[in-house]
Each structure stands twice: as structure tokens, then as C-alpha cells.
């Protein structure tokens, strides 16, 4: 009985305690349920987002870069297949052995192998590591054949930029290269952050980079905790870059570069007088843009940078030279505007006196009596000394500006330089000294402070020849890809030409016909006609400074003006002994030879400017190049022998 009672009281205690325990457990389970409710219902949205962030990864799909085509649709910059060997460590199992075997097929340098092993160790086992890029077909096929012996090795195809014309187009096209840190910092386009992505670094590739680049596509993929792709959920293709069609004629461009290749350092601009389209732009020496794309070695880069001939500089747009006598048309036009009678003669005794100073004519014993026409034709300095004093430097500068000199022309190519057209105000502001009378004389023959680029000289020539305020440009059009075959290009080219003949019709014909778009120059036609006649005489009349370099073929004749830009001062002592011939001077001290011209002389289509650095006189060094370039331009004219209709219907010219 005692036992029972005792147990009974123990049971009472126990059941009381058990009830408390049960209550406690219920509370704790309740807490769990509440926490579960909080996580799964109250905070569900937050965690659902986090789960998606975990799961979903966006990969950018680089769009194919737009091609750059010449006016006939010939590709100047294109995308080529880039075959590369990639290694996936987890498939290779034994990476060292796989590399040993691969080494028997393509040679692996020790440094290369080290880099691969470092990358393999650094990356997760399923991430492909690039072993070698830019494989040729032979290597690709040998690797493919040996694939069973090469676990983890596969061939991946990427795209790379290729410039089939190499150095001949380098100054126009520029090049692409990997994005630099600085560019990455203020880049908005996420594409730039893609490893291995390349952007335009120079030339047209840079100018039109965004349009050529296109926009990135995205691939939405599901990844697991270590980043392995499980599957692709969604794919949005990007917009491919647009093709850029140039005004350049690749055949002309090639010709120009080859014609210049005999010179150490020279440049040429050939442009269409009506449209302002640049047909060819040559600058030597040049460089191979493909080298940049493949990753230029630092030694190669240093060589290019330190080369005294500056192969990386586009001398046609960034080279600044005294225009020399090619500037005389500007002075003459300024004089005509100032009311000077072109028939009024000035006597040239071989020098001109200003105060105590003597200013020499290039012809030591003088030209005799000179009117404007003769002064341009024979390039008499004394005539222009005299005229410039009557006109004044500021009016000459004003005319220079009207003809496109002394400032950037607005060409769609990076790196253009403006040059200098001096005025009295300019000298006071820049040098802090008052203008001296003698400086006007020096300016009048294109020496001294006057600095212009070959491009500006070409623009000046085109304006004089055409009478319109043309501006130069490269991009004829940015086209969507693939809708523009060579045939359409030829039609467009034909339209451009037709537009010049009939500007009114061209205005309706569309954007390709830009001829009517340039306003007329604010210079009376009569004045321009006088100058053109004189330029005609320079080349085509006996006694003209470029008479020996005239084009004799009927209808192709050109008009032009030579120029020589002094690099050194000729001292009085030297003058007394007789000026040393250029040929006898070291190259660096020889004069620059300049030449501007247009053709055909009575229906101007093409304007050209040539500068040969240290080439000697313009007549001997530059004029032959100008003649050859203009001849070639007319020979290659799509309308030289055919009507526009014939061109449109004909198969594209054999170019490859």
C-alpha cells in the first residue's frame, strides 16, 4: 500500500512535470512553425529573388563586327574564323599527358605550356582554357584526326578581324585591339568587359566603332553552385554590327600606296570634287594592322613608335607642312576680292625689297613682267610679295578659311590636325609680338607660319575646281548587313557621278547623291575661272612649272600647282655662292615637294594633293605622283567607258 501511495504521488509529480514539458515542446514547435512562416511567406519574395540570382546567370553574346567595304563592296576589314585549341581539364583527366601528346602535333613552347598549366590550376575544371589561337587549317585537321588521343582537347571557332589589304589600308582603317583599363573604366557597353573583346583603336575602326560593334545578345543560363552551366533558358541574339561602306576605291588606294612606296615619307589625298568622298588616302611608311589584332609584341610596338619616319602617323591628315607655292591660289583669290586687277603687271627682278630686307624669288634672275596668270603659271614669288602687301595678311587668312585651310576639315577619321593660318591677332595671341611686314611676304608664298595638311590642300583644290564648299568624308553609308551587293554599289557609284552632272535630280535620288548638298563658295565664279585657267596653264602651257608632268591623253588632262616648302633657311652667304641643289643635301634638310591638282581640267571630278617629305621641288618630286594618281583615277572611273546603265547591268568588275 505504501508502495502504491508512494508511486501515486510520484506519478502526480511526473504528470505535472510532463504537462509542463509538453507545453514547452509545443511552444518550441510553434516557434519553428512561426519561423518557417516568416521565411516562406513574409520574406518569400526576397528569398525567391535571391534563389533566382543564384540560379540564373547572364552571358553576353558578342555580335559579329560590321565589315568595312570599299565603294564597290570589296571588303577592306572583315571577320575571319579564328580556330583555337581549347583544353577542358576535367575531360582531360591527365592534363600533362594530353599536353605532351598535343605537343607532338603543334609545337608548344615551354613558356606557353607554363601559362596553360597556370590557367588550368586557376580555373575550375570545366572551364575551357585556350591553348593556342589562330591555327591554320593544317594544324586544325591534324588535331581533329588525333582527337581520340587528345582527351579534353577541342577546336573552338571564334571570330577575328582581318585586313586583307594589310598596310595599304592601315592609315584609313586603323585597327582593333583589346580594351584597355582606361577604356574599361568609363565604358557603358558591357561588351567591353568580355574577355578578349576588341574595339577600334584607330582610324575608321575607332571613328565608327559603336556602329560597327553592334549590340550584345544575351544567353540566360542556369548554373549550379560552382558555376557550371546546366542548360540555356533563353537566348536573345544581339544586333550585328552594321557594315560600313566607304567612298574609298580599294584599287585606287592600293595604287596610291604602291606609287608612294618609292618615297621614304610621303602622303596623298585623292577626293571626289563633287561629293567630298575620299577615294584614296595614302601615307608612307605604313604598318600592318593585322599585327595589332593578333596581339602585337612590345618590341614590334616600340619599333613602330620610335621609327623616325613615324609609320603610325597618318601624314595626310596629321602631317602639317608649309603649303609653299600651292598657297598662291589663295593669295590670288584674296587679291581679286580686294579689287586688284589681274592684268596689272608687276616687274620681277629676282628679288623684292622691303626696307632693308631683300626677299628673293625662286628664280634668281627674275621673271620680268608678270600678271596674275603668269605669276601662278610660273610661280613668281615677287608678284605675290607685291600683291600681299596690298591685300594684307588678314584678308589672305580669311580667304584661306573659306577654302578650308588652317582648321580641321571634319573628316570622319580620328587624329586630324588643324594647322595654322596666321593673322595679326593670331601672332599677338600666340607669340605675343606684333606682326611684321616681312611676315606677310613670307606668308604669301606659303612659308613661315602657314601650316596645312595634305588633306586641307586637297579640299582647297576641290573647292577651287568645283566652286562648292565641299568637305571630305569616308563613310558613304552605314548599311545593314547583307543588303548591299557589289552590283548595288556600282549603281550607287554611278548615281554619285550622275548627281554631279544634275544636282537637282540627285537631291531626289537619295543620300548617296550628296553633290547638291554643299553650298556654293562665297567667291565669284569669274575669280575662280581666272585661277583655274592659271592652274591649267601651270600644267598644260609651255613654261608652266609642271608642264613636263602633264597628262597627254585626250580629255584626261589635269590642272595643278606645284609647291616647295623650305625646311631650312637659305643664308645670304649661301645665296651669293649659289643655292645648293637639293640632291646634294642630306635627306633631312631637303625641301618638301608639294603638288595639288584636279582633273579632268574642263569637267573636274578628282582633286589630289601630294606631299613628299624632303623630296626636293614640288615639280620634280610631287607632280609626277599627282599625275599618275589622277591618271589612274580616271582609268578606273566606272563611267570612263560605260554609261551608268551599263554599269548597273554589268557584273561587278573582277576584283579580288
Amino acid at each position, binding site marked *: 500500500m505504501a508502495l502504491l501511495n508512494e508511486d501515486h504521488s510520484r506519478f502526480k509529480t*511526473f504528470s505535472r512535470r*510532463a504537462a509542463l514539458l509538453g507545453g514547452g515542446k509545443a511552444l518550441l514547435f510553434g516557434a519553428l512553425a512561426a519561423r*518557417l512562416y516568416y521565411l516562406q511567406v513574409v520574406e518569400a519574395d526576397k528569398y525567391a529573388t535571391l534563389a533566382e540570382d543564384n540560379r540564373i546567370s547572364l552571358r553576353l553574346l558578342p555580335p559579329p563586327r560590321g565589315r568595312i567595304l570599299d565603294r564597290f563592296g570589296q571588303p577592306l576589314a572583315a571577320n575571319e574564323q579564328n580556330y583555337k585549341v581549347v583544353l577542358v581539364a576535367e575531360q582531360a583527366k591527365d592534363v600533362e599527358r594530353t599536353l605532351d601528346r598535343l605537343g607532338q602535333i603543334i609545337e608548344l613552347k615551354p613558356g606557353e605550356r607554363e601559362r596553360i598549366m597556370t590557367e588550368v590550376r586557376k580555373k575550375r575544371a570545366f572551364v575551357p582554357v585556350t591553348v593556342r589561337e589562330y591555327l591554320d587549317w593544317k594544324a586544325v585537321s591534324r588535331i581533329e584526326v588525333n582527337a581520340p588521343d587528345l582527351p579534353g582537347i577541342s577546336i573552338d571557332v571564334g571570330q577575328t578581324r582581318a585586313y586583307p589589304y594589310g598596310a595599304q589600308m592601315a592609315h584609313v582603317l586603323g585597327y582593333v585591339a583589346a580594351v584597355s583599363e582606361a577604356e574599361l573604366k568609363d565604358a557603358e557597353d558591357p561588351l567591353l568587359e568580355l574577355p578578349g573583346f576588341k574595339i577600334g583603336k584607330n582610324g575608321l575602326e575607332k571613328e565608327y566603332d559603336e556602329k560597327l560593334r553592334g549590340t550584345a545578345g544575351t544567353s540566360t543560363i542556369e548554373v549550379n553552385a560552382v558555376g557550371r552551366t546546366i542548360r540555356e533558358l533563353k537566348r536573345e541574339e544581339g544586333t550585328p554590327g552594321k557594315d560600313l561602306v566607304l567612298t574609298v576605291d580599294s584599287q585606287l588606294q592600293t595604287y596610291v600606296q604602291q606609287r608612294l612606296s618609292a618615297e621614304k615619307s610621303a602622303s596623298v589625298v585623292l577626293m571626289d570634287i563633287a561629293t567630298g568622298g575620299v577615294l584614296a588616302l595614302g601615307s608612307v611608311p605604313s604598318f600592318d594592322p593585322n599585327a595589332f589584332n593578333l596581339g602585337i609584341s612590345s618590341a614590334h610596338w616600340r619599333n613602330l613608335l620610335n621609327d623616325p619616319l613615324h609609320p603610325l602617323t597618318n601624314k595626310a591628315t596629321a602631317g602639317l607642312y608649309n603649303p609653299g607655292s600651292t598657297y598662291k591660289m589663295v593669295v590670288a583669290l584674296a587679291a581679286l576680292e580686294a579689287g586688284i586687277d589681274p592684268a596689272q603687271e608687276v616687274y620681277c627682278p629676282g628679288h623684292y625689297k622691303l626696307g632693308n630686307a631683300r626677299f628673293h624669288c625662286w628664280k634668281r634672275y627674275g621673271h620680268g613682267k608678270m600678271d596674275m596668270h603668269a605669276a601662278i603659271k610660273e610661280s613668281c614669288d615677287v608678284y605675290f610679295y607685291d600683291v600681299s602687301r596690298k591685300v594684307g595678311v588678314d584678308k589672305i587668312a580669311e580667304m584661306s578659311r573659306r577654302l578650308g585651310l588652317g582648321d580641321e576639315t571634319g573628316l570622319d577619321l580620328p587624329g586630324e590636325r588643324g594647322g595654322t593660318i596666321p593673322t595679326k591677332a593670331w601672332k599677338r595671341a600666340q607669340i605675343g609680338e606684333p606682326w611684321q611686314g616681312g611676315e606677310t611676304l613670307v606668308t604669301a608664298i606659303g612659308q613661315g607660319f602657314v601650316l596645312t595638311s595634305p588633306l586641307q590642300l586637297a579640299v582647297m583644290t576641290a573647292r577651287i575646281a568645283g566652286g562648292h564648299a565641299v568637305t571630305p568624308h569616308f563613310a558613304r553609308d552605314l548599311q545593314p548587313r547583307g543588303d548591299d551587293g557589289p552590283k548595288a554599289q556600282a549603281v550607287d557609284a554611278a548615281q554619285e557621278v550622275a548627281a554631279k552632272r544634275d544636282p537637282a535630280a540627285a537631291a531626289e535620288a537619295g543620300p548617296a547623291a550628296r553633290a547638291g548638298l554643299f553650298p556654293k563658295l562665297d567667291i565669284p565664279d569669274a575669280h575662280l575661272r581666272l585661277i583655274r585657267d592659271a592652274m591649267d596653264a601651270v600644267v598644260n602651257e609651255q613654261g608652266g612649272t609642271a608642264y613636263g608632268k602633264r597628262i597627254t591623253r585626250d580629255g584626261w588632262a589635269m590642272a595643278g600647282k606645284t609647291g616647295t616648302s623650305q625646311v631650312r633657311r637659305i643664308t645670304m652667304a649661301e645665296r651669293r655662292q649659289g643655292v645648293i641643289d637639293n640632291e646634294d643635301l642630306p635627306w633631312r634638310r631637303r625641301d618638301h615637294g608639294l603638288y595639288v591638282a584636279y582633273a579632268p581640267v574642263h569637267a573636274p571630278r578628282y582633286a589630289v594633293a601630294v606631299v613628299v617629305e624632303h623630296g626636293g621641288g614640288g615639280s620634280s618630286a610631287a607632280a609626277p605622283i599627282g599625275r599618275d594618281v589622277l591618271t589612274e583615277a580616271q582609268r578606273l572611273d566606272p563611267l570612263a567607258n560605260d554609261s551608268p546603265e551599263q554599269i548597273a547591268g554589268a557584273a561587278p568588275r573582277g576584283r579580288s
Partner: protein
Amino acid sequence: MSLAGFNRNPELSLGQKFLQVNWGLILLIAVLAAIGCVMLYSAADGSMTPWARRHALRFGGGLVLLLVVAMFDIRFWFRWSYPIYLAGLLLLVAVEVMGTIGMGAQRWIQVGPLTLQPSEVMKVAIVMALARYFHGLSEEDIVRPTKLIGPLVLVALPTVLVLKQPDLGTSLILIMVSGVLFFAAGVRLWKFGVVAALGAGAVPIAWQFLRDYQKQRVLTFLNPESDPLGAGYHILQSKIALGAGGMFGKGLLEGSQSHLNFLPEKQTDFIFTMLAEEFGLIGGVALLLLYAIVILYGFAIALRARNQYGRLLAIGLTANLFLYVFINIAMVMGLIPVVGVPLPLVSYGGTAMLAIMISFGLVISVYVHRDIRIPRRGLGEED
């Protein structure tokens, strides 16, 4: 012995005992194990191997063991309580001496073909030993502090050994289960207060003895977002999975967190997370309810037993189950630090399954032999 009829010890035949088995409880256990199978099937991305099939087989084997344990007379277990405790203690010593290194801590011991985890054995054995001890204490004895020295030693020995392995989680469970038994046996509440105060005072000292990874776990628990890719990664990913599951879950095999391996150890410690991601709040609460019912069963069995040993055994083992469930789920929800405690019957793991099935065997044995009385002073010497 005048009231011999009152004091009857109903001796049942094996067949009668079998009928007495609480089949409703066994059905609940089977449902929990089945849920485990489904989740393990999902954890293997829709495959019975490597986990789900073995889980089912182990449950089958465990069920047989459960019934065998249940058939043994409660007095048998009463007699063998101390020897089993001693054996468990020896195993813990053995693990200390020759245990193999696993998971950075000595926890496993090879006994023939079996890999045993003595700490799991001890979780059952400590309950048996304490139940045996408190069975022998009268209401008056319980009040005397001197009478508490013995059971405290019973608790302290295995706790220290497990702590040395080092296994902080299990040693805390041992302390908490023991606490439940002390409490159920009627130890005065103020004494718990004293122990708690002493314990709190000991925290700074104990901190010195914690291993770095244990300290890290506690620190990470306190601020899991501080290091989302390091130590806090598990908790954060688990919370993301739970939250992403929402009210109704993503559906079987659809849990992105689990199937894309953001969730660690999803087949063992984090299986609740996967369940709640794939079946949502509904699934999570349903599982909690199932456990609650099982625990209620344990309480009912304890209250119906006519001997103090059986009561304490049932309440202690039920508390054990509760602690497993609570610690595991609280851990994956970021309520307590990460401690390696599986979810009973659902998580994959042999020893844990074995221990839990033996525990239920004992509880059912208490039920089958609920009417047997055991004298306070013990068996054998009929007084």
C-alpha cells in the same frame, strides 16, 4: 502481500505482446521514413540510388529491431540499464583511444563489420541509466541534493568524453536530455536555476576549450550574412531555399537551390530545407505536425505506464526525438548555430536510424508492459 491481486504483474505471452504493440505509432514512423525516401529520391535528382533505396532497407531492418526490442520485458531493460550505460561509456573511451578520424573529429568505431558511433548509443543509454536511477528515488530522496550527485556523474562522464571528440552538438543534447529527465523526475526547479546560472558563468571558460571551427560556427550563427561565401554560406543558402519555396513549394525535383547544389549536405542535415523548398510551408508544417503527433504518442505512453522507470524512459526518449527535430530544423532556419544533427527518420544515415528505431522499440516496450510494476528498490530481491 495482501493486495497481491492489486499488485499483479500481468505476464503476457509473445503473441499477446505482439497485439499490444502500438501499431498507430509504427504507422507514423513509417510515414516519416517514407517521406525520407521521397526526399532522398529527390536529393539524388530523381534516383533511388544512392540514398533512397538504402534508406528504405535500413528502415525495414530497423523495424524488425524495433519489434524485437519492444518484445523484451521492461524489467529486462530495467536490469540491463546500468550495464548498457557502462558499455556505452566503454565504447566512448574506446573511440577516444583508437577511434578513427572522420569529419575532423573522432566519432566512429569499427566493431567487426559495423561502423558504430558510440555517442549515438550513449544518447539512448543515458536515458536508460537516469531512468533507472530516478526510479529508485522516493519523493523525499529527490529533494536531497546529495542524491543528485550520482546522476550528475552519470551525465558528466559521457558528456566530457563526447566533448573531447569533439562533438559539441551531441554533448549539448546529452545535457539537455538529462535535464528533461531530472525535470520529469521532480528535481526542484530552483536547482535548475542554479545549474543554469553556473552554466552561464562557465561559458567564457568553456569558450577557451572550443575548437576553432566550433567558435567559427557560433560566430557565424550570430551574423551569417557577414561572410556569405565562407562559413555563413550554408545557413544563407538554406534560408534562400526555404524562402524560395514559399507557401506551396516548387514541387518535387524542382527545387533549384537543392538540385543545383547550392544547398550543402542536402541528404543529411539539410534535408528539411529541401523538403520545405519543394513542398513549401504546407509541407514543412505537415512534417512538424507528424513529429508532434509522434511526440504526443510518447507522452501518452509515458503517462499510461505504471512504473516510474517506464515513464521516465518514454519521456526521455521522446525528449530525445524532440531535441533532434528541433535542433535540426532550428539550425537550417538559422535560429541556432550549425550543429551536425540529422532529422530523425528522414535524414540519410545508418547509426542515427538504428538509434532512433531502438528508442522507439523501448518506448513501445514501455507501452506493451505498461501494467507491470517495478518495486522502487529494484527487482530480483522480492521485498
